[in-house]
């Protein structure tokens, strides 16, 4: 069937009523090494076509591969971070199939002797539960070149008259991380898939092994899905949906395939074991290559490379370099910062944790850090279609400015409303918080006489409230502070006002 046709879909709840979904996720991540997996060519993203190629990655006759040491090291660190065992004996294998963007017509990969195997990753779901995803293996391989399809509909392979191939990407190190079949997720299956990929992305980022940019293809996800009749425990025929390259798409693709499989099975049909293509724009999958007997990769040990047998003490050294697991770090920081679950979720959704941690490290309070990074700056970043960290970085605004702003408040120079103005000025590019405050004449009124006058006037005007406070209902003071600030046209010091009101009413 062609990309335009739509297929029958079953309602999601109906699918769940009749079937259990089983997921399998294969994630390819491009390592951020200086050079390719098997040759010394650079790996810069977006370079001019065919400028980062050599006899090895072009597959020229006679060329031979040599393994990138950092590629192996990164693979082991990823394996360890995924709680995998690290093989004592691991080999590369050739996966043989013909494709124009694969220069040797075999991919140098790993087959039955991967570098890491048998791990797990715990992922936090939207509903607050934790789901353990079992990891089958993580292995090393190489990326392919990139084809530009010419002559058909824009960029589509169907209808193209020819293709233009750039081999800059060919040979870039990839780690393929494969889960065991994920069963028992039920209605949470789409969420599990998304959360797994998100958690994996955070972990790989924390490891510093990849820039994990799904939009640039440095992290790519294939989604395997099958349904089995509810309670049967028998895995159904699966489809493999390729190149699902955003978190949202992962979730949508799982849901779509569940509904598509459900419709086929419910109507008495059977699922064709095949590759499916995900269409980001329309949110559907279409049929790709059929996985038939014709696909026989004829794996065999790569004779041009020797086995990798990582020494145990080296593996332990690498284990010692692992960063704190992101989930654990989140729990630790939430406790340390006294954030509520809701606050923490907002911080995480906005991707602010790193910025906040840096701000606290630079001397800011957790509350102020959260407040300033999630307010106006988040609104502006969102309007600009960016996340806060990259938006702020683009402005040259960082933790130092937030700490300075907070100091201006705690030192009594600015009240909260003034601080907001100063922060806007900073984001407008007017300079540091102090510079903005100076330029805009932001300064609390420190005249104690004016404060006393205002406090006395407000107490006189609100005898009932004043009486409550005298009786010990101190929390009522807020109403009076607001009026005092109003009296002082926003330039009063709220803390000083509070202290004075309480002392006047015998509660100091």
């Amino acid at each position, binding site marked *: 069937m062609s990309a335009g046709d739509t297929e029958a879909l079953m309602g999601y709840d109906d699918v769940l009523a009749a079937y259990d979904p089983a997921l399998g996720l294969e994630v390819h991540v491009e390592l951020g090494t200086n050079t390719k997996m098997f040759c010394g060519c650079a790996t810069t993203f977006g370079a001019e076509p065919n400028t980062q190629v050599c*006899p090895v990655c*072009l*597959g*020229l*006759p*006679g*060329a*031979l*591969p*040599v*393994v990138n040491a950092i590629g192996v090291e990164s693979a082991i660190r990823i394996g360890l971070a995924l709680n995998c065992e690290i093989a004592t004996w691991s080999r590369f294998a*050739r996966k*043989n199939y*013909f494709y*124009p963007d694969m*220069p*040797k*017509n*075999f991919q140098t990969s790993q087959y039955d002797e991967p570098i890491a195997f048998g791990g797990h990753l715990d992922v936090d779901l939207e509903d607050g539960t934790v789901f353990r995803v079992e990891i089958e293996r993580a292995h090393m391989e190489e990326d392919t070149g990139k084809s530009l399809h010419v002559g058909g509909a824009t960029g589509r392979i169907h209808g193209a*008259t020819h*293709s233009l*191939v750039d081999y800059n990407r060919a040979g870039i190190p990839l780690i393929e991380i494969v889960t065991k079949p994920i069963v028992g997720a039920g209605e949470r299956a789409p969420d599990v898939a998304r959360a797994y990929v998100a958690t994996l992305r955070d972990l790989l980022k924390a490891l510093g092994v990849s820039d994990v940019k799904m939009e640039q293809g440095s992290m790519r996800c294939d989604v395997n899905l099958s349904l089995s009749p509810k309670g049967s425990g028998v895995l159904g025929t699966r489809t493999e949906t390729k190149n699902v390259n955003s978190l949202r798409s992962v979730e949508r693709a799982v849901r779509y395939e569940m509904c598509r499989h459900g419709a086929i099975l419910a109507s008495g049909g059977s699922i064709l074991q095949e590759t499916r293509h995900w269409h980001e724009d329309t949110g559907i999958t279409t049929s790709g290559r059929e996985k038939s007997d014709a696909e*026989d990769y*004829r*794996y*065999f040990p790569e*004779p*041009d*490379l*020797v086995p990798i047998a990582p020494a145990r003490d080296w593996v332990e050294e690498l284990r010692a370099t692992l960063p704190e697991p992101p989930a654990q770090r989140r729990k630790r920081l939430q406790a340390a910062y006294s954030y509520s679950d809701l606050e923490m979720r907002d911080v995480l959704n906005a991707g602010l944790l790193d910025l906040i941690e840096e701000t606290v490290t630079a001397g800011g309070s957790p509350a102020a850090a959260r407040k300033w990074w999630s307010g106006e700056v988040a609104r502006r970043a969102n309007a600009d279609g960016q996340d806060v960290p990259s938006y702020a970085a683009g402005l040259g605004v960082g933790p130092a400015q937030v700490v300075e702003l907070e100091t201006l408040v705690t030192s009594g120079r600015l009240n909260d409303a003034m601080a907001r103005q100063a922060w806007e000025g900073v984001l407008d590019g007017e300079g540091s918080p102090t510079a903005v405050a100076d330029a805009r004449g932001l300064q609390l009124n420190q005249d104690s006489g004016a404060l006393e006058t205002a406090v006395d006037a407000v107490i006189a005007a609100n005898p009932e409230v004043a009486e409550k406070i005298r009786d010990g209902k101190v929390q009522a003071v807020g109403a009076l502070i607001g009026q005092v600030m109003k009296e002082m046209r926003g330039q009063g010091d709220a803390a000083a006002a509070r202290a004075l009101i309480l002392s006047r009413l015998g509660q100091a």
Partner: protein
Amino acid sequence: MTDLTRASAAELADLMARGETTSREITTALLERTEAVDGAVHSYLHVDRDGALATADAVDRRRAAGETLHALAGVPIAVKDVMTTTGLPTTCGSRILQGWVPPYDATVVARIKAAGLPILGKTNMDEFAMGSSTEHSAYGPSHNPWDLDRIPGGSGGGSSSVLASFQAPLATGTDTGGSIRQPAAVTGTVGTKPTYGGVSRYGLIALASSLDQAGPCARTVLDTAMLHELMAGHDPLDSTSIDAPVPPIVEAARRADVRGMRIGIVRELTGEGFQAGVQQRFDEAVQHLVDAGAEVVEVSCPSFTYALATYYLILPSEASSNLAKFDAMRYGLRVAPRDVDDPSAEQVMAATRDAGFGDEVKRRIILGTYALSSGYYDAYYGSAQKVRRLIADDFASAFERADVLVSPTAPTTAFRLGAKIDDPLAMYLNDIATIPANLAGIPGMSVPSGLADEDGLPAGFQILAPAMADDRLYAVGAALEQRLHAVWGGPLLDRIPDLLASAPTTPMATPHADATTKGA
């Protein structure tokens, strides 16, 4: 006056060092010889007259300026067309690579260039080194200078015949199952397959990666050792390259000392199946070594019975994968399928591979594809890998009792062109004695043992040593060569028929276009 075309590399090096000749004189003499005889012998696929002379002149200038040069600087060499050479066509004897000019040098070629050896040209070979006769070259066979109707061996028949027809004193070879040693044996020349990993494979167009090994070809044991030393040594571009010093091979060749050495005769590699004259020369050679102070023991390697079958599973399997890259997309031939409008990449690949590969290559690719395919892997490729271990173990046991092992290099002398071309299995049997060394990764050498009585053609004596003990080959080879030269009153090649007297010759003085690709 020395005949510069017949002198050994060591002699030429001495003459140049003494100022009695120049690299230009030598190179010119050899190029003239090529013009005279290569029409009949067809050793070369490509001659690089300009390049060779330019290198010769550069070396002569540096020598005149008093620079310290490599021992072989200025000695011309012929390079097997399996090795990539920047700016020179490299076809590997295949139509699929016709006209391909690599943008890089094989490590071996880079070392040859760095040492200042003029490269005369690229020598003919069986397509992708699959064969024992050069009859599988897409550009026509080479001929044995002893008898132009006979094969010069293969796959390196271009290199063996270039030496035996005095067109070059040195040549490179590659040996996957005997492609250096068997051609040496049938042309009365010398060739060594070093320990696997001893010489870099970078830039060698791979046949079977775990079996391929590049090595030296020459007319004397000392020349072979000198070229071996030049080619060998660790290469970081080849993961299977041995990171250890090259054994003292030149010293061993000069000392030629076998006193106290235990020479093991492999029971499975003598007797039945070997031509009488070949066996006779072998037996005499063993006696010469005994006379030189060696001791003889007999050893048995029972798994060798399976060596040929093992080899013809492992080789096609690896080759089927190695040769997948020839697909008409990035380099080489591109052929459109007949009767197909607007063919797809897949169809162009399949049509090109059909048109660009010869029968033997296709046979082995299909066989290898089968041996690796799911469901048959364990029975074929898997079993072969296990037997390969048994063969290596047999060698290990044998080397506990003997310092070197010996056998005839090939079961017969050179057969007639065409005699076995239609019988692949008969062709494969030529490699019966040479294949085990490749399977085990150990070094082996062939030196001339004399002419077989029944046909007057050269026979070869094979020496095998443990991995990394390549120097033992040279000690034994040189000792045997010394004794035989004494018996013969000179090198065996002194008895070769005069090609100029018998062969139809091309005019000697024809000014050739430079860098002529021949035989295409």
